[in-house]
């Protein structure tokens, strides 16, 4: 039978009772009404056949993890049924249950035991686990001396030491380095070839498109879209970065600033790509009211093609007279690595001072080519006053804009240094 998993009308609700005793009575058939019932998942239906690999996307709290937990069996669905044919291997959290004082080897035995394997079965694969982890002699040292990457390596090696019929990978692979990730994906690919179904939960759309044959977009506990990875990721990006309201190519507006010129209200947070987890601070002598991003002929582009000239315009209200303003700009990866930071003082080489009158509105822009690898990046902006060695921050909006860079031809690392390559002819 090629059907590996069938999920029928699954719903999951968490119930709150006025008193926990009522919950206990309800197990014995007593009719007690929960005071509140939150539905985390509603009417989930799908079935999976051998060899499919399914990406699951959705915002935090959409219900992805709950769905996976129901499939693995740690949570029980409130309604509906689920049929699993075969063994499930789940990498929900790498290094779950690792004991710091035990060696990697002992932990490997123990975790494999937690997956239900016998001593004999584990002994047969322990050398594989050791080899695959690639941590050499550290394998026989206590786990407390491991880096998180090393721990992830052992954990992944254990979790995939036996080929499961369904493999669930929940945002776990982001820990290891690129080399190890590649190794993991190779192993996953081999499993897929042998018929394993893969569930991949990740916020990296790229991985979904690269590794999956199908994708589910979960929104508010429901399957919003079940389709090809391409369709699903586009839909998901719409959701994240705001739908491209005008599909028809906009004529390049005569002035990009038209869209943000009006008013003195803070409209920053209403813009597509705004990151509400931003960190805003400063003593308040200025207010960054609005922004517009522009690339490839689009305002607020949902994706920016790598290498595109990209513009960031900011609208700032100055609340006092200033003689010497500095506007700062910073790009980070979504996991916090600083990629590039600069400011107006550096860019103008100190030749010109920016000044402003009280209650005036000024516009500033940064233009730069996005020579970055595919992925999500966070933009920070700040405005300060004073001499360079004694800057007083007026307002800073760290990580306030999320951009998504798209790239067809990949490379490894973050920055495209635009290498060239050719074979040389040389006759000695």
């Amino acid at each position, binding site marked *: 039978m090629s059907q590996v998993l069938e999920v029928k009308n699954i719903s999951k609700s968490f*119930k709150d009772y006025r008193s926990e005793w009522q919950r206990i009575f309800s*197990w014995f058939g007593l009719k007690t009404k929960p005071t509140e019932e939150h539905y985390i998942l509603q009417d989930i239906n799908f079935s999976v056949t051998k060899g499919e690999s399914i990406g699951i996307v959705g915002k935090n709290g959409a219900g992805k993890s709950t769905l996976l937990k129901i499939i693995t069996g740690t949570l029980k669905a409130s309604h509906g049924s689920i049929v699993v044919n075969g063994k499930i291997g789940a990498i929900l959290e790498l290094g779950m249950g690792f004991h710091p004082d035990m060696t990697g080897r002992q932990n490997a035995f123990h975790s494999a*035991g937690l997956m239900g394997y016998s001593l004999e079965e584990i002994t047969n694969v322990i050398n594989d686990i050791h080899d695959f982890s690639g941590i050499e002699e550290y394998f026989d040292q206590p786990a407390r001396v491991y880096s998180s990457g090393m721990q992830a390596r052992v954990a992944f090696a254990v979790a995939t030491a036996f080929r499961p019929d369904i493999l669930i990978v929940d945002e776990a692979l982001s820990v290891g380095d690129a080399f190890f990730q590649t190794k993991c994906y190779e192993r996953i690919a081999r499993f897929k070839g042998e018929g394993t179904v893969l569930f991949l939960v990740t916020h990296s759309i790229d991985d979904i498109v690269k590794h999956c044959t199908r994708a589910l977009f979960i929104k508010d506990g429901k399957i919003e879209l079940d389709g090809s990875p391409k369709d699903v990721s586009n839909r998901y990006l719409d959701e994240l970065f705001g739908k491209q309201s005008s599909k028809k190519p906009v004529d390049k507006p005569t002035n990009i600033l038209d869209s943000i010129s009006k008013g003195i209200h803070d409209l920053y947070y209403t813009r597509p790509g705004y990151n509400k987890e931003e960190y805003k601070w400063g003593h308040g002598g200025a207010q960054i009211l609005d922004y517009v991003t522009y690339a490839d002929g689009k305002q607020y582009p949902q994706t920016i093609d790598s290498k595109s000239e990209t513009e960031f315009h900011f609208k700032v209200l100055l609340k006092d007279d200033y003689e010497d303003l500095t506007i700062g700009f910073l790009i980070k990866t979504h996991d916090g690595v600083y990629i590039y930071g600069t400011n107006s003082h550096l860019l103008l080489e100190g030749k010109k001072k920016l000044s402003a009158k009280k209650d005036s509105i000024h516009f500033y822009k940064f233009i730069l080519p996005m020579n970055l690898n595919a992925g999500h990046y966070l933009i920070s902006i700040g405005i300060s006053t004073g001499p360079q060695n004694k800057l007083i921050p007026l307002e800073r909006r760290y990580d306030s804009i999320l951009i998504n860079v798209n790239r067809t031809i990949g490379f490894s690392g973050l920055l495209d240094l635009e290498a060239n390559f050719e074979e040389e002819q040389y006759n000695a």
Partner: protein
Amino acid sequence: MKNMFLAVWAYRFFIVSSIKTEFKSRFVRSKLGGFWMVLHPLAQVLVYALILSQIMRAKLPEVDTQYAYPIYLLSGIIAWTLFSEVLNKSLNIFISNGNLLKKMSFPKLALPLITIGGALINFFIFFIVMFIVFGFLGHWPYHALYWFPLLVLITLSLAVGIGIFLGTLNVFIRDIGQMMEIVLQFWFWLTPIVYMINIVPEKYHTLIMLNPMTGIIMGYHNVLLYDKAPDLSLLIYPSIVAAISLVLAMIIFYKAREEMADVL
């Protein structure tokens, strides 16, 4: 329900491995290592045997040694230690493993077995140490030792039964765990461990016998102090209570197991 037990059997390696890990991790970073497993009970036994034998020289009827009281006390303590260790750990077993239960799918009943295994090893070491010390005191109670496994079995059943029953409820109503800590203190003093039952006024005897631990502890006294078979009639009532609590524990656990991860 049968599948529940089969699943546990499949996890036997994990259970053994967990017990080992628990002990290893306790001693792995100390120089004396596993020797501490012996030193702790040895210290406890020596305190009772050497110090109490000097302070409390009360002779017990039927026993002809100045060490009668320490032996009496130790026979009760060893049983109570097993009982309270298993009961206490079972009470919090699902809560303390909450993270594991939420993230991994494995038979939950493996957890109490790990607890029992660990407690049994502690008990066994305690017992050996105690027996050797008894020997040094000139007391070799080996004639009725074959009754010992039965006593241990009843003690464990009672502890696991009550422990899992309340431990399951404790996941949902956390006050139960707190309350039991207090109850256990009273329970200890309401069981004839430190004192002899004959110093209790006659009118309270039925009340004391209502405590299922009383009969069990008196069994240990018989075997370890009086060197004779336990009074089986005193074990019937504790066995029934143990059996009932085990059944209730299984029922409540069976009903609760699916909702447990929701509230952990």
